[in-house]
Structure formats: C-alpha cells, structure tokens
C-alpha cells in the first residue's frame, strides 16, 4: 500500500500546483515579475525535469542488468546530446523564435508542406517516446500492487489526462524544475542508502560479477508477460496452486503467473535471450542482439542519442523560455552538468540489481529493478519506505515527461495538421493520451530503453539534419529538406517495423536494423544536401540565416536607461 500512497501523494501535489497555476510562483511584490527573467540554472532544471523520463529513472538500470555495463553508454549519449545542442542548435533556434521543429521549418524555409511533414515526425517521435513511459508506469504500478499490468497503464493514462486538463497545459517552468529536484533527491538518497545497507559482500559481488547460473536462494519470479523458458535440468517449482515439475525442454509461462524456484536450481534460459556471463557483463561496449559488433553497436546508440536529443520536440520547446540565444546556450551547458550528476547513479542500481535480483531478466521485467531493490536489502519498514520513495520518483519521471510529450503531440495535431482556427486543444490532448494508452497495452515485452532509443533515432535522422543544415547551410532548399526528412522517417520507421514484427535477424544485418542510426543519419544528410544542390535557395535565405546568427542586441534598439528599480 505504501508505494500506492506515495504515488497518490505525488499526483495530488502535481494537481495542486497545476490548479494553482501561476499563483504558485507569486512573489511578495505584485510588480516587476516580468523583468525577473528565468535564469539559465532554473531553466536547465526545467529542461532536465522534462527530459529525465521513466526510461532514465528505471530503464537504464534495467538495461545494465540485462545488457551489462556497456548499457551505461545510453546515459553518455543522453547527456552528450546537450553538447551537440549547445554547439549547433540552442542559440540559433531560440533566435528564430520557433517553438517546435515544424515552426522552425516554416520560419526558415516557408514551406507549409514541410511543416505538416514535421508535425507527422513529431507524432512518430512522441509516440515512440511516450509509449515506453506509460508501459513503465504500468509495470511499476503492477509491481508494487497486486493489480495486473493493464490496470496500471489505464491508471497512468487517467492520471495524466486529468492533470493535463486541470492545468497541466501551462508547461510551467517552476513545476518542471521542482520535479527535477524531486527526482534527483528520490534517486540519489535511496542509492546511497542501498550501497551502505547492502553490506560488504554484496558490494564486492557487484564490482566482480559472476554469471547467473544457479539460484542462490529460494526465488519467486512473477511474470508480467508471456515468456518461453528453456529448461536444461528438471526442476521442481512452487506455484500458488501447488508444486509442479518443469521437465527439460521449452515451457510457455503465461503472464500473471508466479513461479518459486528452489535454492540451487539451475536457471532456465529465456528463448532468444542469452544470459550474460561475468566477463560479457563487465565489457565496456554494447553488444546488442549478440551481433558480434560491439563497437558498431555502441556507436549506433551514441549517434542516435547524441544527435537525437536536439530533435526532441518537447525539449526544444523549453528552450523557448530562455530570454535570448545566449541564455539558451547557457541553459544547454548547465543541463549537461545536471544530467551528469543524475546519470552517475543508474550504474549503481544496475550493479546492485545484477547481484540481488538477476532473476528479473527471466520475466522481462528488468525495468523494475530500481523499485525491486530496497525490498532485497531490507525487509523491514525502511525497505518499504525506500520502495515507496523510488516508486514516487519513477512516477514523477513518468508524469513530467508524459505531460510534455502529450502536449507537444496534441499541439502538432491541433496546430499544424488540422486546418481551421482555434482548435480544441483540451479534447485533442485527451484523445492523444487515450491513443498512447492503447499503444502501450501491447508493448509490455519491449524494453523502455530500446523504444526511447528508437525515438531518438527517428529524431536524429529527421530533425537533426533539418536543424543543423537549416541553421548552418544557406543553400538548403525546401525540396531538399522535404526529401531528407522523408528519407530519414521512412528508413528509420521501416527499420523499427522490421525489428518489431519482422523475422529475427542476426549478425550485422540484425544490428543495423535494431540500431539504424549509423546509416540512416548520413543517408538523410546526404539526401538533403544532394537535392538542395540541384535547386536554388530562396532569395531571402541569407536574411533568414542572419536572423538566426546575429546577436539579438544588434537587431533590437538599445535598452532603456531607466530600467525598473
């Protein structure tokens, strides 16, 4: 009950802040609010608050348990993205005044067709990013309560919709900055407590991992998704309905069942998923799908995440709050530091999880490793308390990111895709939330980190070339941009569809399908440049470029001498 109470508390708090709206940031003085501009530190806290999703809070540690220490390249890429953003995009994007990539497309290239295409891309990225958030929220809720997964997802959807309709659409900077501090606190304090509480033996094992071959104690494993286990030796498992023997061979375990494996039993294999041995787990590279190309796999993830960050629409929107280009650049710089602090800790959870709850990979539930840990270390009230705190943090992460994503998706529909005047944003938002819930229901078996990385890949192959070339290359034409974005969108979504529904591929092909960034990003850039070179840029493109790169102070009149006291 504790974790659910914590979630209820968090939702209530968010709702209250949302309802009170700007009143939450009222100061003692009624005047001069406008001249008090947002500092880069506050804005970067808001950016980080929006950015640190459930995939960061839970997913990275889960991937560490599953794929080994190499999974820590994900947070490296997530953070490095802000360096690319800082150098290439932040300031010119702010100077353009554009709120989202579709706005930028219209401002720079004046093409309504490109604007609509970009809105479609926003929807694709948003869906790939929002579905894993809902999935993780559902998993966590069902892990800490007795309810099944779909109830968790529905509850998450309902909570988000209600929050959005009751004031969540303000996208308030102060709320997001507060959410970041909350997440940071709720992530770091339990981590420190876990390390201290775990004891010297576990700490030693955590840095010297061994292969997970036998259960070291009686272990209950509850399955949230259908899994096929391959058993090598006969093993007698306990189920709520009584004991049963698993004979050698393949066994299909239905979702919702719980099996208790006895101490000393050999760990069954999950079909299509080899458990990592100690050396593999420690390797500092990502060998995805056992393709045998760990270096390429690592580069694929790094390229996608580092270049995709600049194309995340809900993050770009936050930079609009900066008063000018210089402040936007500073915001990006501070964000690197804030995220760097946060991402020191997923590795801690991952290493501890590998020792304490390795069985999670059997049930495809490695994403819940963070919330599963406290109960392993302490069975008393401190364990429950920290489980509650971590659940609260995970839900905060889910809430903050989903609000931003749903808002930006419904904005793309209501603002860019539907014709007509003032559209009903509130209705669109609820419809988009419902659609995301429907997509999240069958998405249990795909890891949050993987789906989110696909979202980054689409962004890196579409918006990254559009923004980088649009900002730095005056010869870009609307036709070139259209071709490049279409190329990137079709290739990446084709690869994702193939990876999700196609036949299992292995080796280099398999890697290039699951991590398409190494070929789709250069392809999109090439298409954009090649088609642009065939056409002529618009006569005003130089002026548009100047607008992006000249300091605002040169364009505006000198500031007044008598600023308010």
């Amino acid at each position, binding site marked *: 009950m504790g974790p659910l109470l914590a979630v209820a508390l968090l939702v209530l708090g968010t709702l209250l802040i949302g309802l009170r*709206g*700007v*009143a939450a*940031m*009222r100061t003692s003085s*009624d*005047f*001069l*609010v*406008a*001249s008090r*501009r*947002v500092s880069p530190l506050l*804005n970067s806290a808001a950016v980080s608050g929006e950015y640190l999703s459930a995939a960061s809070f839970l997913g990275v540690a889960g991937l560490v348990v599953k794929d080994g220490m190499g999974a820590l390249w994900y947070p490296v890429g997530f953070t490095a993205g802000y360096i690319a953003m800082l150098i290439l995009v932040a300031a010119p994007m*702010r100077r353009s*005044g*554009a*709120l*989202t990539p579709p*706005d930028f497309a*219209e*401002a720079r290239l*004046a093409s309504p067709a490109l604007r609509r295409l970009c809105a479609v891309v926003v929807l694709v990225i948003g869906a790939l990013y929002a579905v894993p958030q809902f999935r993780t929220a559902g998993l966590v809720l069902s892990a800490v309560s007795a309810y099944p997964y779909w109830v968790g997802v529905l509850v998450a959807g309902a909570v988000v919709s209600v929050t959005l309709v009751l004031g969540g*659409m*303000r*996208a*308030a*900077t*102060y709320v997001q900055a507060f959410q970041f501090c909350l997440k940071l606190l709720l992530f770091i304090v339990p981590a420190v407590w876990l390390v201290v509480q775990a004891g010297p033996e576990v700490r030693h094992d955590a840095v010297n991992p061994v292969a997970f071959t036998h259960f070291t104690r009686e272990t209950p494993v509850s399955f949230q998704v259908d899994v096929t286990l391959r058993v090598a030796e006969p093993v007698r498992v306990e189920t709520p309905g009584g004991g049963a023997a698993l004979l050698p061979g393949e066994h299909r375990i239905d979702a919702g069942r719980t099996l208790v494996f006895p101490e000393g039993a050999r760990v069954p294999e999950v079909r299509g998923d080899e458990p990592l041995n100690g050396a593999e787990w420690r390797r500092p590279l990502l060998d995805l799908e056992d393709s045998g190309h760990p270096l390429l796999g690592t580069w694929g993830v790094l390229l996608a995440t580092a270049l995709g960050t600049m194309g995340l629409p809900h993050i770009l929107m936050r930079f*609009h*709050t*900066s*008063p*000018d280009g210089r402040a936007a650049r500073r915001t990006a710089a501070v964000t690197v530091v804030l995220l760097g602090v946060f991402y020191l800790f997923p590795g801690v959870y991952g290493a501890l999880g590998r020792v304490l709850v390795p069985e999670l990979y059997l049930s495809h539930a490695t994403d819940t490793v963070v919330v599963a840990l406290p109960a392993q270390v302490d069975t008393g009230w401190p364990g429950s308390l920290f489980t509650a705190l971590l659940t609260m943090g995970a839900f905060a992460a889910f809430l903050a990111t989903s609000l931003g994503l749903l*808002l930006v998706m*419904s*904005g793309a529909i*209501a*603002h860019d895709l539907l014709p*007509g*005047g*003032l559209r009903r*944003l509130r209705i669109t*938002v609820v419809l988009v939330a419902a659609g995301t819930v429907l997509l999240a229901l069958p998405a249990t078996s795909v890891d949050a980190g993987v789906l989110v990385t696909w979202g980054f890949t689409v962004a890196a192959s579409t918006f990254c070339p559009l923004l980088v070339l649009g900002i730095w290359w005056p010869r870009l034409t609307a036709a070139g941009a259209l071709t490049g974005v279409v190329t990137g969108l079709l290739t990446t979504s084709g690869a994702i569809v193939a990876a999700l529904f196609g036949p299992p591929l292995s080796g280099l092909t398999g890697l290039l399908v699951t991590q398409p960034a190494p070929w789709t990003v250069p392809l999109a850039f090439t298409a954009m440049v090649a088609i642009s070179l065939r056409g002529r840029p618009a*006569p005003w493109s130089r002026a548009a470029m100047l*607008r992006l790169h000249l300091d605002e102070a040169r364009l*505006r*009149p000198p500031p*007044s001498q*008598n600023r*308010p*006291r």
Partner: protein
Amino acid sequence: MDPSPVRPPHRTAARPWAVRPRPDAMAALSAARGVVGDLRDGLAGSGARRAARRMRRLLGARGLALADLAGSLAWAGRPAGDTEVKALIDAVLHAEAASGRPPLVAEPLFANGELAGALVVAGPVRPASVRKAAAWVADALDRCRLETSAEQAAQAELRALRAEISPHFVYNALTVISSLVGSEPDRARELMTDFADYTRYSLARHGDYTTVSEEFHAIETYLILQRAVLGERLRVQVRVAPEVLGVAVPYLVLQPLVENAIRHGVEARAGAGLVQVSGEAEGNDCVICVEDDGAGMDPARAKAILAGRGSPDSVGLANVDRRLRHVYGAWYGLVVETAPGAGTRVVVRVPRFQPGVMP
C-alpha cells in the same frame, strides 16, 4: 549564331509547326489563371519563367520570352537569335509600340499605364493573338501591383491603429508628479523617470512587434503611474509565467486593455477596485487575461464595442481586436467575458510562434 539554350528545348519544339493552340476552354482558363499567379512578383520575379512557359503553350508559339525594363529575358521554348531579339526589345522599349513581324514579334507591356517590359513571341502566331496575350500579361501585372499596394495600405492601417497615449492620462500623471515635487521629491523623481520610460515605449516607432516581457514592463510602469494618480483605490496584481515572456506580440496590445480595466473597474466607482493581469502558456498558445472587478456590462454592449460601434472613448478594445485579427488571422481576436455586476475579463490568445511575427 545560335545562343546556347538556357534549358533543353521543349519536346514539341522538334516539330514546331505541329504545335496548335489547345481548343479546351477550361485548360486555357486555368493557364491564364496560372499566369496571374506566376507574375505575383512581377516580371523580374521567380515565377516569370513559369508564366512564359504557360503563355507559350497557350499561344502555340515556338518560343516566347518576357523581358523586364532592364532587358533580361525569361525564355520558354526555343530561344530566337540573341542579337535579333536584343535589337527588337530595344526598339519596343524605346518606341513603346509593337515591333517586328512574324515569325518574331515583340509587344510592349504596360502596367498602370507605365511601360513595364516586353513580350517576345517567336513562331507563326497571328499578331492579334500576340496583342491579346500582351494585354493579358499587362492585366496580371496590374493586379500584382494592386495587391502590393493593398498590402502596403493594410500595413499602414496597422501602424495607424497603434494605440496612442491618452491625453487624459498624461495630464493626470503630470499633475500628480508636480504635486509631489515639494513634499516627496524622491518619489516625484522616480515617477518622472517612469513617465519618461513609459512615453519612450509608447512613442517608439521601431518595428511592429515586441515581446510579452516588454509589454508587461510597459503596463507595470503605466500601473505605477496610475497608482500614483488613484492612490489606494487601485489595487493591482500582475502575474506572468516565464514561458511566455519571449513570445512576440504587436506593440501596445495590453496597455489599452489595462487602461480600459482601470477606467471601468476603478475610476467609474467610488470604492477601491482590483485589476489583475496574468499571462501563461496553454500548449502552443499564450493566453493573457486582463480582469477587473468593476460593474461589468451587458454582453451585447461588449459585442457592440468590439465591433467598433461603442462610445468613442472605448475605441481601444476594437482597435486591439482588429490588430490581433490582422496579424494572427480571424480566429485570434479578443474574448470579452462580462455580465452586469460581475466585472469584466478580457482574454488575449496568441500563438507562441507565428511566422513573420518577430520582435
């Protein structure tokens, strides 16, 4: 000698005499409409070549060119000899009359009665057709000029609609300041500075747009001065979320609304009144509310005021409404929520980004 062709010849140009005007009336109509669209930027614009291609197909000529006053040509089809055409255009532009004979004729083009360029047609086309074609191009040019001047007129109207400082307010503010010079010289100096600041902003004539941040700054100075005039009767609350501070808006859209709220919510009654101004983001929009707790009014009257049929002293609201609609489109006008005895709330909703709206 044959000049190097600008683009590969049209495929029908291989059998020049086989080209005939299309008998399809609708096709001719759509081609004619297309020409008007293509010539939107004039003869030197980017659509001139496209227009020439359409005209060539319409006339069934072997080659057709549109020349502007500088003599630069946009050819469609097979270009005629360079020197020949140059001499012909020179003749036409100097004599301001048709020149040449089939298969190479040139007609002058007049827009608003002034020479604007020339139409050159190569091939077996009857001179009467060429004259008609030239007249059509001239009409298209006329229309594009009219459109440009209509746009300029709308811009000028927009500038003219910009709010003016009310003389009533200037007089009151200066009177209050002068009354304070003796008793509270420091406060008087501060108010004087505020007054200078406010007039500087209101009278500034650079660009058409500013930021929400600047607008709020302006209404804050305005409210400080009004508070000096009205004293304790005016209570004020200004709240703005940082997300909308950078949004670009037309100059002085908020000040008339605040002035209106003070006039109807505070000055019109004996007791104290509260004026609240708030700005916040709602998705991709920025929503600014100006609210007073005064007497309110009949919604029908508010409607009349917005339509510009109100009393002469409340022209400010209608003015702001028209400017907003002009800049952001018909949907983005003012929304007035009011009822007798319930105060008045005026809501401004603008997109957080609109192409072309830049501070």
